[in-house]
C-alpha cells in the first residue's frame, strides 16, 4: 500500500486519445468486405402492416440482402427482470421481434433491414421498399392507455397493463395514518419522458468467421458480457463460446446502452447470412426514436403531517409508461429501483406506492441516469418543499424535523426502511448544514424579499436526496425478479517484469475507469500508475462481467479488483518469505516492497513478480505465476446522499428562469479521484437541471414525437448554468473494501426537484401560490403560472 494516487485528482489517462479525436468507437472500425445496414422504420405510431414489397429495392445495384419480419420476426429480445402483478400473476411479456411483420407499435418500430455496399445505397433502397400500412389510433399517455376504449398496443395485454405492483406498508395502515394527518400536501404531476442523447449514437458490427464458425459483435454498449448472454441464450440460440462481444470506446450511455437491442441480433444474423461484416450506425433521428427513453411517470402523491410537522404518511398512485415493448430492465425501474427509495431521508412511518406499468405506442422506456431514483427523489422533495410553503414552515426546518438520525453502519446498525432497503451509513444533517452555510441562507431570504418588489423574482429550492447504488447483492435482486446476478469480476495479472494487466467486467463509457482503477492498483501494489493497464469491454479478454450502470463500477467492480490484489499480495508474501528465509507471517508489504518485519531485508514487487514466473528458488507446493481473478458480490447496495440547493431568478415579464447558483454537497463515501467525481457530479447536474428547465419528449395526438431533433429538443449547454458550487462530506460505505458508494447518478438524482422547488418558491414570493409548474419549466409555462 502506498498513498500516492488514491484521493488525488490524477488527470485522466484516456483523455489524450479522446480529446485528440483518436478514440476508437464502433463506427471507426472498418473490417475487410464490410457492408452497411439501414433499417426501414415505421412512420406511424400504430398501424397494421398489410403488405411489404421489397422487389424494387432488392434489384437495386449494390444491395446485398434485405431482411423482413417474415424472415426473422420469430426472433425477439427478452426482458431481464420479471415483476409480478399484485395478485401473483406473472407480468405480461409480449414478444419484441427483431423486425415486425404484422403490426407496428411506435414511430421507429423496425420493419426491414437493408444491407448494401454503402450507407447511401442502403438508405436509397430502403426508400424503395413499399409498405402498405393501415393506420390505427395511438395512445402515448400511460394514464390514458388504461382507460376503457383506449387503443390496445398488444392483443395479449388487456387494458395495456403490463402489471400492477405495490410496495411499503399495507394500504389500510397508510390510509389510517393519512386520515390522522393535521395537514396533507398533495401533488398531481408528470415526471416527463426524456431522451438520453449519448454523444455517440448506437453502432453495431456483426461479423461471422466461417473458418472457425465464430461470431464477433462490436457494439456500443455498457455491458458486453450481458449482451452476449442475452443474445446467445435468449435470442439467437448461439453457444456463448462461439461468440465474442466487444464494446470498444463508447461515447456515453446514461443507461441507454445497457440494454440488448434488436439491432445487435440483426447485424449478427445478417453477417451470417451474407458472409460479410455488417455495420449499422443509427442516425441522430433514429436515436430519438429508438434509444430507450427515461422517466415518464404520471403521479398523484400525498404526504401527511402531524401538528408538529412530522411526516405521518406517504401515499402514491403512479402510472409508469413502459413504451411499446419491454426493454431489458424496464420493469425494474419503476418498481425496485423506484419504490424502494420512497423512504428518502425521512422517518416516514407509513408508506404505500400503488404502481401500474403500462404499454403505450411509444419508444420503450428504461433506465436513464438515476433510473427510478430521480423519480422517487423528485416526488419526495417536491412534496416536502411544497408542504413547507403550505404550512408556513421553513423547508430546511421541516426536513430537520423529519431526518433519520446519523448512523455509521459500523457501531450503529443500518437504517431499515419501510420499503425493503436497509441504508448502510448516513449523516443527513451534515450535508444540509454545509449546504446552508455555502448558500448564506439568512442573507438570501433578505435578498429574496427585496427582489419580490422588482421584475425579477428570486427563489431557492432544496433537495436532500438518497439513492441506492452499487447494484447489487445477487441473491437480493434474484429474489426480486432479476434474471441475472449482479456481481462483478476483476482479474489482476502481474506480468513477469512487474507490470500489471487488469481485466474488469465494468465498462467505461466516459467514467474514467482506466484512471481510477489504475490509481487503486498502483497504490495497493506500490508501483507507478503507468505500469498498470486496465482492460475492459471484450468478452475474449475479460473473464466475465455485468457491466456499468447504477453507479456500480467502483463499488462492485473496484472491490473485485481489490480482492484479486489482496490475493496477489498474499501470494507474493509467500514467495518473499521463501526467498528471505522467514515465515510469510513475518513479511509486511508496503510501498512496493516485501520486507521482513523489523529488518532492512526486503524484495521489491518486481523481484517477486519475476520469481513467480522464473520459479527456480520457490516455495514447495506453491503454483508458479501471479495472476488472480475474483468475483465480488456485494452484501448490500450503497447509499450516497446529499443536499442540492438551487437559486433561480424568474423574469416576471417573460417567465424565463435563470439558474443563478447551484450548490451540491454530496456524500458518495470515499473518493478515489476528486476531479473525476466532480466531473460526474457536473454532468449529472447538467442532466438533472436540464430535465427541470429544458428537456422533454413531446408527442402529438397521433404518437409522433414533435421534437425529435436538436433543433427542437433542448439539450442543456454550458451557458445554461452558473458555475457549480460543489462540496463533499465523506461517510464511508461500511461494507465494501474501498468504502466507496458511487457518484455517477447523484447529480442527476438530486438536482431536478431543487430547481423546480426554487421556481415555485420564487413564484410564491411574488404572490403566485402555485403547486407545480410542469417540467420542463419553459418560460411560457412559468409565465402562464403567474397569470392565474
Amino acid at each position: 500500500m502506498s498513498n500516492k494516487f488514491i484521493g488525488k485528482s490524477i488527470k485522466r489517462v484516456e483523455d489524450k486519445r479522446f480529446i485528440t479525436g483518436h478514440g476508437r468507437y464502433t463506427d471507426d472500425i472498418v473490417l475487410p468486405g464490410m457492408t452497411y445496414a439501414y433499417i426501414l422504420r415505421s412512420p406511424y405510431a400504430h398501424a397494421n402492416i398489410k403488405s411489404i414489397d421489397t422487389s424494387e429495392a432488392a434489384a437495386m445495384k449494390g444491395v446485398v440482402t434485405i431482411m423482413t419480419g417474415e424472415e426473422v420476426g420469430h426472433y425477439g429480445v427478452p426482458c431481464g427482470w420479471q415483476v409480478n402483478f399484485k395478485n401473483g400473476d406473472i407480468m405480461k411479456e409480449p414478444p419484441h421481434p427483431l423486425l415486425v411483420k404484422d403490426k407496428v407499435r411506435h414511430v421507429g418500430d423496425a420493419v426491414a433491414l437493408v444491407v448494401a455496399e454503402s450507407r447511401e445505397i442502403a438508405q436509397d433502397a430502403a426508400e424503395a421498399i413499399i409498405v402498405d400500412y393501415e393506420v390505427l389510433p395511438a395512445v402515448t399517455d400511460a394514464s390514458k392507455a388504461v382507460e376503457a376504449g383506449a387503443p390496445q398496443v398488444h392483443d395479449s395485454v388487456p387494458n395495456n397493463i403490463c402489471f400492477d405492483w405495490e410496495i411499503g406498508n399495507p394500504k389500510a395502515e397508510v390510509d389510517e395514518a393519512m386520515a390522522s394527518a393535521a395537514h396533507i400536501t398533495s401533488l398531481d404531476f408528470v415526471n416527463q419522458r426524456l431522451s438520453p442523447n449519448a454523444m455517440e449514437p448506437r453502432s453495431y458490427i456483426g461479423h461471422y468467421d466461417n473458418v472457425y464458425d465464430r461470431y464477433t459483435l462490436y457494439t456500443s454498449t455498457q455491458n458486453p458480457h450481458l449482451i452476449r448472454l442475452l443474445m446467445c441464450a435468449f435470442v439467437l440460440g448461439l453457444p456463448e463460446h462461439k461468440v465474442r462481444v466487444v464494446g470498444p470506446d463508447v461515447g456515453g450511455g446514461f443507461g441507454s446502452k445497457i440494454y440488448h437491442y434488436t439491432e445487435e441480433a440483426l447485424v449478427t444474423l445478417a453477417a451470417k447470412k451474407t458472409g460479410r461484416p455488417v455495420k449499422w450506425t443509427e442516425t441522430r433521428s433514429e436515436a430519438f426514436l429508438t434509444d430507450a427513453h427515461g422517466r415518464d411517470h404520471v403521479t398523484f402523491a400525498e404526504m401527511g403531517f402531524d401538528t408538529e410537522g412530522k411526516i405521518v404518511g406517504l401515499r402514491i398512485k403512479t402510472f409508469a409508461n413502459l413504451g411499446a415493448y419491454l426493454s431489458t430492465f424496464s420493469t425494474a425501474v419503476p418498481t425496485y429501483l423506484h419504490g424502494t427509495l420512497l423512504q428518502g431521508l425521512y422517518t416516514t412511518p407509513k408508506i404505500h406506492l400503488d404502481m401500474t406499468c403500462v404499454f403505450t405506442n411509444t419508444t420503450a422506456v428504461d433506465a436513464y441516469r438515476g433510473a427510478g431514483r430521480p423519480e422517487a427523489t423528485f416526488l419526495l422533495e417536491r412534496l416536502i418543499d411544497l408542504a413547507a410553503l403550505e404550512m408556513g414552515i421553513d423547508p430546511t426546518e421541516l426536513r430537520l424535523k423529519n431526518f433519520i438520525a446519523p448512523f455509521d453502519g459500523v457501531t450503529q446498525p443500518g437504517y431499515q426502511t419501510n420499503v425493503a432497503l436497509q441504508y448502510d451509513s448516513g449523516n443527513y444533517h451534515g450535508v444540509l448544514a454545509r449546504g446552508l452555510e455555502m448558500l448564506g441562507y439568512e442573507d438570501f431570504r433578505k435578498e429574496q424579499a427585496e427582489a419580490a418588489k422588482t421584475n425579477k423574482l428570486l427563489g431557492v429550492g432544496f433537495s436532500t436526496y438518497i439513492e441506492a447504488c452499487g447494484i447489487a447483492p445477487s441473491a437480493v435482486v434474484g429474489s426480486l425478479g432479476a434474471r441475472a446476478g449482479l456481481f462483478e469480476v476483476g482479474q489482476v495479472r502481474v506480468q513477469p517484469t512487474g507490470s500489471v494487466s487488469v481485466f474488469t467486467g465494468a465498462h467505461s463509457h466516459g467514467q474514467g475507469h482506466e484512471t481510477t482503477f489504475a490509481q487503486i492498483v498502483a497504490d495497493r501494489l506500490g508501483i507507478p500508475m503507468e505500469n498498470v493497464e486496465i482492460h475492459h469491454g471484450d468478452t475474449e479478454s475479460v473473464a466475465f462481467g455485468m457491466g456499468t450502470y447504477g453507479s456500480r463500477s467502483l463499488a462492485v467492480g473496484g472491490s473485485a479488483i481489490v480482492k484479486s490484489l489482496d490475493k496477489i499480495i498474499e501470494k507474493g508474501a509467500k514467495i518473499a518469505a521463501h526467498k528471505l528465509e522467514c515465515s510469510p507471517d513475518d513479511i509486511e508489504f508496503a510501498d512496493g516492497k516485501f520486507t521482513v518485519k523489523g529488518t532492512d531485508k526486503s524484495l521489491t514487487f518486481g523481484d517477486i513478480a519475476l520469481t513467480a514466473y522464473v520459479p527456480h528458488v520457490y516455495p514447495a507446493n506453491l503454483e508458479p505465476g501471479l495472476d488472480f481473478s475474483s468475483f465480488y458480490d456485494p452484501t448490500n447496495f450503497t447509499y450516497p446522499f446529499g443536499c442540492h440547493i438551487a437559486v433561480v431568478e424568474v423574469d416576471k415579464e417573460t417567465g424565463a428562469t435563470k439558474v443563478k447558483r447551484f450548490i451540491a454537497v454530496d456524500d458518495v463515501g470515499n473518493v478515489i479521484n476528486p476531479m473525476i467525481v466532480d466531473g460526474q457530479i457536473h454532468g449529472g447536474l447538467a442532466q438533472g437541471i436540464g430535465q427541470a428547465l429544458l428537456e422533454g419528449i413531446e408527442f402529438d395526438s397521433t404518437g409522433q414525437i414533435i421534437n425529435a431533433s436538436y433543433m427542437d429538443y433542448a439539450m442543456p449547454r454550458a451557458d445554461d448554468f452558473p458555475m457549480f458550487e460543489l462540496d463533499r462530506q465523506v461517510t464511508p460505505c461500511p461494507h465494501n473494501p474501498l468504502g466507496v458508494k458511487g457518484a455517477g447518478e447523484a447529480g442527476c438524482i438530486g438536482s431536478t426537484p431543487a430547481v423546480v422547488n426554487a421556481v415555485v418558491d420564487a413564484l410564491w414570493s411574488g404572490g403566485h401560490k402555485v403547486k407545480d409548474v410542469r417540467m420542463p419549466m419553459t418560460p411560457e409555462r412559468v409565465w402562464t403560472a403567474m397569470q392565474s
Partner: protein
Amino acid sequence: MIPQAVDYKRAGSVSEAISLLAENPDAKILAGGHSLIPAMKLRLNSPSLLIDIARIAELRFITAGDGAVAIGAASTHNDIISNADIQSRFLAMVEAGELIGDTQVRNMGTLGGSIAHADPSADWPGVLLALNATVKVEGAGGTREIAAADFFTGFFSTALEEGEIVTEIHIPNPVAGANSSYQKFLQPASRFAIVGCAVAVVITDGVISEAKVAFNGVSGEGAFLDEAVSTALLGKAATLETIEAAVAGAAEGIDINEDHYASKVYRKHLAKVYAKRALVAACEL
C-alpha cells in the same frame, strides 16, 4: 441523416456561379450550408448539384462608403460582428450576429445565405428591415437592387428570381441621433428567435424623429415591419411611457406563429416585451 448523392462545385467568381446555376436548374447555392445541409441530411431537399459560393473572394468584404456600408453576401456572421465599421454604426447587427448559433456556425454561416433562405425565425431579416437595407442581386439578366421590405416576401420566400444570387447588402449610414438594437427571445434548442425585435430610431432633441420596428420569429410568414408601433413612436418624447404605449399595439393583425415553445398568446405577449426592451436599449433609457 444520410443525404442523397450530390455533386459539388466551388465557384471561383460570381459570373461562374451564375453560369453554373443557369446550366443546372436543380442546383442549390451553398453559402455556408447551416440550413441547407441539415435539410439535405433529412432528405427534405435533394439537389443534384451544390454550387459553393462561400469562398468567392469578391463576395466577402465589408466596405464603409459615404452613404452606406456595403457587405458582401459571403461575409460570415463573425466577419460582420467583428467589423469595426459595423460595430460603430449598427449595434443591432452586432447584437443579432452574436446570438446566431455558436462560434462554429458564425464562422461558416453567411449573411447572404441566411437572407436568401429567409427562415421566418432567422435574425438577419428583421435587422435588415429595421435598418432599411437594400439587397443587391445578380443573375444572367444583370443586377437588381431590392429594398429589404420588398426582398422578404413570406415563409422561406424572397424576391430572388430563378438563376439569381444575392451579392451585396447595403445599409445606409446612420444619421445624427440614430441608434439601433436587436433583442431576441431564444428558442432553447435551435436558438433561433421565438421573438426577435430589431429597432432603429433617430432621436432629435429628445424626440423620436424616425423609428422602424421589425420582428422575426413572430409570424410564420416571415420578418415584417410593424408600422403601427413605428407610427405610434414618431414625434413623441423618447420615454418609457411613449414606448410602453406604442408596443401595446405590437403584432396586431398579424398571423402569429405557434409551436410547443410558444403559443400565439404568449408569442404576442413576448413581441410587446421584446419591442419594449429593444426600444429602451436603442433610446438608451
